[in-house]
């Protein structure tokens, strides 16, 4: 199929999909669906789609909320702090241990990531307010978990609605216990998706880590060096940060902090002293990276460790900020891994060449993984984000190499229709969509959590990625969908 035919098919699919909606909803959704191409003259986004707007009511959006963005993504993985889900029981329970933010520590003693702490609001807390209860929660945490290094209070919907003042409680209690307590006003109804939660969480990092009283955090034993960097916006899903960090260390850099996968407060406190911030998930942590640039003069760059082509590009870009020693070592690292990568590609490319993929994820993956698929000879023919902004789509435009259907905040109905019409060989998206497509007999990979595999970052991660995509696409199970007694066609 030539690119013209594909593009025509993609445009026809959009047109047909819109027909199911009542007029107002169709008008709205039309703005979020488009066909992007590398020759696209529109510089602002990809496929001219609009983003970061309210979801159409009554459809099955895959979006989450501000609480999910703050507690689930940014703050939750900080391992030596205790994150209180402040409000009723559900939010904390549903978000518990869902994101595979790997860490090393004694859970329940000095690390707490996979646990669920909740103030478990009852009706009387709604009527009379929950500030007093929050204070008592903090006291009990101090008694039972004395090795916590700090506490965050993650507001669920009712907190903002009933007008509780968690900021005042945090201030008073922080003084009392002599540790950092971070109030985060990330109520789920704020904003249109989890995206605002990332921003609110970033602001809280600024206010309570960088500008707060960190007298209980001792960073004096770490002397800064010329080669200090921080990894920002890597959540260590399945160990991603570790398989990234190893490359940076091999090229002679010193990673003093990683956020927020496997992070500690001390690492965060050390960050304003680094020479360069390395930003992986632009969407969730560009705010704090910009802040550090403005306030502390730390430059930040985006990098992409998915697939060897992008990894090599990124390693060189990172090295270019440092002296020739680092640059030389960077080339050594690239050369060291090249034979392994060549072998991986030689093994898997023949099995995957020409296979078409449709993506729908959050954060950075709808654009960052395109290169990794291409390294395996695969083609991404559709992509979109749950909660992106225009600048994400602008960055996406730079990654696509052919006509690609672009869908912003695509809902279950639309994604299913796109898949049926464009018939990709693989769908790569989230847990909620997984079984819809598998039931159709379509190979599927869950690209929020690497489907309980991973890591996918870095060179070692790419080998796993390649193996997993092969496993998905070439599994014999898909051939069983149709019974032998069913007629062909």
């Amino acid at each position: 199929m030539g690119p013209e035919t594909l593009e025509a098919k993609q445009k026809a699919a959009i047109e047909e999909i819109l027909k199911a909606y009542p007029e107002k909803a169709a008008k709205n959704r039309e703005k979020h669906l488009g066909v992007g191409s590398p020759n696209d003259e529109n510089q602002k986004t990809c496929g001219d789609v609009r983003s970061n707007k309210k979801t159409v009511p009554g459809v099955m959006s895959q979006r989450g909320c501000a609480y999910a963005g703050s507690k689930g993504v940014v703050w939750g993985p900080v391992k030596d702090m205790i994150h209180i889900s402040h409000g009723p029981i559900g939010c904390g329970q549903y978000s518990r241990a869902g994101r595979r933010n790997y860490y090393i520590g004694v859970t329940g003693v000095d690390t707490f990531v996979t646990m669920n702490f909740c103030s478990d609001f009852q009706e009387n807390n709604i009527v009379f307010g929950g500030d007093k209860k929050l204070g008592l929660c903090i006291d009990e945490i101090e008694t039972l978990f004395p090795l916590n290094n700090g506490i965050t209070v993650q507001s669920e919907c009712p907190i903002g609605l009933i007008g509780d003042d968690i900021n005042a409680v945090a201030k008073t209690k922080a003084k009392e216990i002599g540790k950092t307590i971070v109030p985060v006003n990330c109520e789920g109804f704020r904003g249109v998706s989890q995206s605002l939660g990332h921003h609110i969480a970033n602001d809280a990092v600024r206010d309570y880590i960088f500008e707060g009283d960190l007298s209980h955090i001792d960073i004096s034993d770490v002397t800064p060096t010329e080669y200090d960097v921080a990894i920002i916006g890597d959540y260590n899903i399945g160990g991603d940060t570790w398989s990234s960090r190893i490359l940076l260390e091999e090229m002679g850099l010193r990673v003093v902090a990683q956020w927020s996968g496997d992070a500690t407060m001390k690492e965060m406190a050390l960050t304003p002293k680094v020479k360069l911030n390395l930003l992986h998930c632009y969407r969730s942590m560009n705010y704090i990276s910009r802040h550090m640039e403005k306030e502390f003069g730390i430059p930040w760059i985006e990098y992409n460790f998915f697939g060897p082509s992008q990894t090599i590009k990124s390693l060189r870009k990172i090295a270019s900020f440092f002296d020739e020693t680092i640059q030389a070592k960077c080339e050594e690292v690239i050369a060291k891994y090249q034979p392994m990568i060549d072998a991986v590609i030689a093994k898997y490319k023949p099995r995957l060449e020409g296979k078409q993929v449709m993506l729908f994820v959050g954060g950075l993956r709808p654009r960052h993984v395109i290169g990794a698929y291409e390294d395996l000879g695969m083609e991404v023919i559709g992509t979109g984000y749950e909660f992106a902004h225009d600048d994400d789509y602008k960055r996406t435009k730079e990654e696509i190499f052919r006509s690609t259907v672009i869908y912003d905040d695509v809902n279950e109905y639309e994604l299913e229709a796109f898949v049926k019409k464009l018939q990709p060989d693989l769908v790569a998206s989230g847990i909620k969509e997984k079984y819809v497509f598998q039931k159709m007999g379509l190979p599927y990979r869950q690209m929020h959590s690497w489907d309980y595999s991973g890591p996918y970052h870095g060179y070692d991660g790419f080998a796993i990625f390649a193996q997993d995509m092969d496993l998905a696409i070439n599994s014999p199970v898909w051939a069983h969908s149709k019974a032998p007694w069913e007629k062909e066609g």
Partner: protein
Amino acid sequence: MQEVEKIVNGKDLFKRPEYQDVLANKKQFESSMLAINPAKVEEIAEWTKTWDYREKNLARESITVNPAKACQPLGAVMVALGFEGTMPYVHGSHGCVAYFRSYFTKHFKEPTPCVSDSMTEDAAVFGGLVNMKEGLKNCAAVYKPKMIAVSTTCMAEVIGDDLMAFIIAAKEEDKGEFLPAEYPIPFAHTPSFVGSHITGYDNMMHGIMSQLTEGNKGETKQRINIIPGFETYIGSLRSVKSIVEAFGTDYIMLGDHSDQWDMPAGNYEMFSGGTKLDDAKDCINSSATISLQKYSTSKTMKMVEKRWKHAGGHSNPIGLKGTDEFVMKLAELTGTEVPQKLKTERGRLVDAMQDSYPYMHGKKFAIWGDPDFLLGLVSFLLEMGAEPTHVLCHNAPNGWEAEMRALLDTSPAKDSLNVWAGKDLWHMRSLLFTEPVDFMIGNSYGKELMRDTGTPLIYIGFPIFDRHHLHRYSISGYDGALNLLTWITNKVLDQLDEDTKQIATTDYFFDLVR
């Protein structure tokens, strides 16, 4: 570095020396308090295992740690998916719906349809009427459900949205183009700060039943309604149906999600199976209604008994005694003798219980879960001579603790058997360290307790994220009891092998025949 002929994932990758170095390097930047050193961590870790810690832990009044309950709308979504072509519609922010869908999907490994009307800040100020009007219309147009079942989130409840008025307004808005006047849109208030997921189940079942049956009271039919309750075992629904069918009686299962969460591969249809809406409308004319879960259906059953005046009441068909009671209730309500098929099934179960009892007798168990589930499971454990040492119900409603206590008091070991109502799994951790048991029975959250305390976990409950297909089996009826017996006994045997497998030291007891 990976080797192409043997690519490994994180499980083995990070054990390699180069990654151990990475983790060791990282350590120097990690610890932020001088007080925290490995010895201190060890000291505190040991302290958490003591009676002193237990006392402080049990004295907790405010913070909940590792709960064993979820919130109301989750139960409401389950009810909706048990009815033919019904879309669960959650009035509130879409974040909640993303969570409900993920939670069920991770447990069942099945798609879970559910929409929300995506309320945001402006709805918080002005109310959610606009979202509701537009949302219902879009939902009807895009997914074409036969019914939309509306429940609420804490957001909608705190701002006090008037569901009935909103739904009427939505129907008037488009002059019936998408939502004709007779289109069924039952609703329930399901604030997350009241009760738990079983309360939401009850509220939504009550909402659907009361709305669909309104004005349909007519001649009473010889027919039995069955309400399964918050039942996550698909096989249990099928077992119960097969028992009722054995009596040859006409019946309606109200809220039958067994096909929805067990769709065959092939063509994906958003809705599958469920109680026929015509049946649901007519269920008021059945002669009896039996609820299989007393605490998950208390409000609904009050209506059934007071307003519908149905016979039936509660019957919890888990374990031998529970199933016997259910079977006898059906015999009584239908005036039929117990069918031979069930007599045979019962005989086979008892035979199996007599084969396996030595391995369960006297074994101490810790168990947690929903109130009705626990009454059934504990009853079965007692039938086998086992000792449920710790029975923990985080979402225990009024009356449950006394009922469970009375059940445990039937055991000769009653003095060492404890009921823990309203406690969470961090409490359970202390209980397990101070008063250890042989086995735990519970959901996936138990695996952390297993890691910390070394107590083997038998996966029975909800949610189960990290084991596959258990929910496809039954835990109800005689066949369900046989499943329970099989899972528990074989775990005991697995553990026996585990404990005796050391070559030339303990393996004299590593028997080939048990």
